[in-house]
């Protein structure tokens, strides 16, 4: 499979979850496990351009897929506009759910570049956050929507 643009591979037990392959085998620990039942969304990654809760998928199911994790968002030192927006708008506190929220926010903006607040809330409904009350998360996605439309960058990536 391709992860963050790099060809990777490995031999795993059939029951290995995609999230464990990403974290343990590839050492990409930015993707987190919060609940192991598919509810919290901390493990959300993009698989072939669609958000997937990677604790709900076996690693072997992602064979040949293109995967984007939080580590693949920034380009060198330059943050992705959605990361920048979360940073500027205090869209994170403990940061544990953030990688998943970035993925869900980005996926939403790729399909709907100018969402209403209600649509943003719907778009991140599958990601639980206990710190922010979502107030600044919504604000961050709204700000990212603006900057991505303005800059024309980021939206098409991934």
């Amino acid at each position, binding site marked *: 499979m391709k992860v963050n643009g790099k060809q990777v591979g490995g031999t795993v037990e059939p029951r290995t979850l995609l999230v464990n392959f990403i974290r343990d085998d590839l050492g990409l620990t*930015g993707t*987190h496990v919060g609940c192991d039942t598919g509810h919290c969304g901390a493990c959300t990654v993009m698989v072939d351009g669609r958000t997937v809760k990677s604790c709900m998928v076996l690693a072997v199911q992602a064979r040949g897929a293109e995967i984007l994790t939080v580590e693949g968002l920034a380009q060198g030192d330059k943050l992705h506009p959605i990361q920048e927006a979360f940073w500027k708008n205090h869209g994170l506190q403990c940061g544990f759910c953030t990688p998943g929220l970035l993925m869900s926010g980005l996926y939403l903006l790729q399909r709907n570049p100018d969402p209403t607040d209600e649509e943003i809330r719907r778009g991140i409904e599958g990601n639980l956050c206990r710190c922010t009350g979502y107030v600044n998360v919504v604000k961050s996605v709204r700000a990212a929507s603006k900057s991505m439309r303005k800059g024309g960058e980021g939206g098409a990536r991934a």
Partner: protein
Amino acid sequence: MTMSVTTPKQREDAPEGRVEDRRLLTGKGRYVDDLKLEGQAYMGMVRSPYAHAKINSIDFSKARESPDFIASLTGEDLLKEGVQPLSQNPWPFQKRAKRYHLAVGKARFAGEPVAAILVRDKNSVEDLIDLVEVDYDSLPVVTTIEESKQNKAIIYEDWGNNASLTSEVKKGDAEKAIASAAFVIHAREGIARQGAAPIEPHAVLVEYDSKQDSYDVWATVQSVHGTRDKLASELKKPKEKFHVRVMDMGGGFGSKGAQSYPEAPLACIFARRTGLPVKWTATRSEEFLEAASGRDEYCDITLACDKNGRIVAVKASVECDLGVTGSQAHMPTMTIETMPGPYRIPNQDITVAAYVTNKMPIGPVRGAGGPEGCYFIERAVDLLARRAGLDPLEFRRRNVSRREGPAEGEADFRLLLDTLVKSSHYEELSRWRSDLHSKFAQQGPSHSSLIGGLGVSVTGSDESEDEEEGEDWSGASSGGGGADGGSKPWQPGGGSSGGAGERWAGQTPGGSGAAWQSSGDSPERRTWPGASEETLGFMSETARVTLDKEGKVTVYTGSSPHGQGEETTFAQLASEELGVPLKDVTVVWGDTTLIPRGIGTFGSRSAATGGSAVIDASRKLKAQLVVRASEALGVDAKSLDMRGGGFVRASQPDAVLATLNDVLVKQRADEVSASSVFTLSGLSYSSGVHLCALTLDVELGKVKIVKYFVVEDCGRMINKAIVEGQLHGGVLHAVGGALFERLAYDEEGNLLSSTFMDYNIPTALDSPEVQVFHETTPSTVTLDGAKGVGESGTNGAYAAVINALNDALSQLGTGAEVNMVPATPDAVFRALNAKRAKTPAARDSS
């Protein structure tokens, strides 16, 4: 005395984004489960499926056959090792409950660990747990306070009963005042058991060094020092043998605080026995089964006022279900201490009794008894306002006001309420509510099933007492925050029945012996139990600030941020004191070797206490540096100041005479540093007023919060975005608590809500757009002027939401009321229908 209330401006150097965010946004944060050591093995916990059961035997033979099996431990093994029971804070009001890291003899709650195994392959942990065969005889189970009182089963045999603690707050003659009051209400209120539910589950990683006989421990904890001291005391080793660290942490909300958990000590034992690094990460179900939960408090309250709407008396009886009781049981006492809130009620008779049951232990969860206290009084205040025929806002205005105005540094509650009315556009909201009601009344529920409700609450306390009232314990009700330090008259555990339970030596964190300050002490002498020269009190925090010859400043703090942004706020404080750019300041925390003493982050204490220590150390460092600069530059020290990354004459602040590193180089100093152990002279917490506007669908019982406002006084705002973020999250924690969250048990003591599917924390769709406004009064007891804000939002929001819901219900005229929390759609629906069936269209007499 009057004092003008000022709203300080946002600090000019407050950064646009937090310092810590870059690594967290790019996946480079380091949470405990992200760490991986060569050859690490995985620990698995075998947990009791019974809430109360005798353990006959534990058989590992099948598990041992697996090539992945490495080692096992049972409670009996721990006794052979001489491991001490799980630590408990030596509060005199709390009965000692003797439990070990692995159950010895019997299991006392479903989920209690009875054995631990060490496994080679992470994927095999759960397989091998299933292969461990434990033979149990189930025992009668106690799951409610009623069953506990009846001693249906005795949970700790040495107690003789299940009563854990009683306490009271008394003042004047409540009984008499109620008898002659103009208006009186009674209510039965309660908040169910609820979870802290941080998104990151607990985790620990231990590496043992056999040459040094020492342990490297990485753990998800809000206090590395407390964890180190507990490990030392439970494993009976000097605390220098434990190097405890935490880096990034995915939330705590109290559950990763001072509660004693079995896993870190067990991982240490496995690591020493096998020489392998040992990792344990909780599954979400384990998190729900074992991580300290909170609330589970119920209150019968009577509140009375005179004909002018002045509250004259409160009489309340609180009961708390402690589960098997953990290391801390001060939450119910916090509830009764904070219950009077900002109201100066002349006659108070408030009691609390707490009981043990066969459930996981409760511990401090965001607010730690404060949300319960606030909810109980604020719900009653609403009922009394209605009874007296007064608007709830006006009723509160009458009761928070003081002849002489607020004391210095204290919130002006009238101003907060006035600002709430303005900033929420209260009149418009009232019109919105009336419009919805007209539509509902005219068109009928089949066309419009929505009604609107408005609810307010006040959180905070009136710290200054009237002298003539002659209170015998001043300021212990610290209202706004989940103080863990309230001291007050107590009665030894168990009330009149039964002994106080066994107290054993050496259980004080750090083994230094209890130094509990007795009830007559002034607030500044109130200390964390176990406080001594070595182990600091709740009112203290440490900091060390260093300047190196590159001109870089490092702040070492005993606080332990996990979302609160102290890496940013503490850098701001040092930067301001030392006149260095923010980018040249680094904040270090969570390491018992780099920072030998400290307390941690919980109880809304870090900005106030930790921040003060940072300022104190920075000022001490500055004094040293100015002397050095004076020597190096030949300028009178008194005329020197620090600014722009260097030294300036105070009279010419823009002309840098020498940079910081110039002076250090001239003096041939590699590093200059100063330390502080700062102790606050009093508690300092935020106050606030809340307003919730919601709609209730009377057909479905469904509630939707449409607007939410907070006006708060958090003292000086070091960083506005962070303050508001704390309030947003704090409010939502309580919105979840008020409307959805419940750790439900069946009659056998099985936890029914052990995943995020059954235990609903709010999603983005359930959450209001919380708007925060500020009316700040700098604290006079903290050096940075800050007041603790982490729990303030949670304390106030239960009451605002439930008052709003009841405001909506009241418009139906059926007398339907919901005072038990959470007010799930089901509970609201049942309340609506019960009243419909029983008393159609009749107003309830209450």
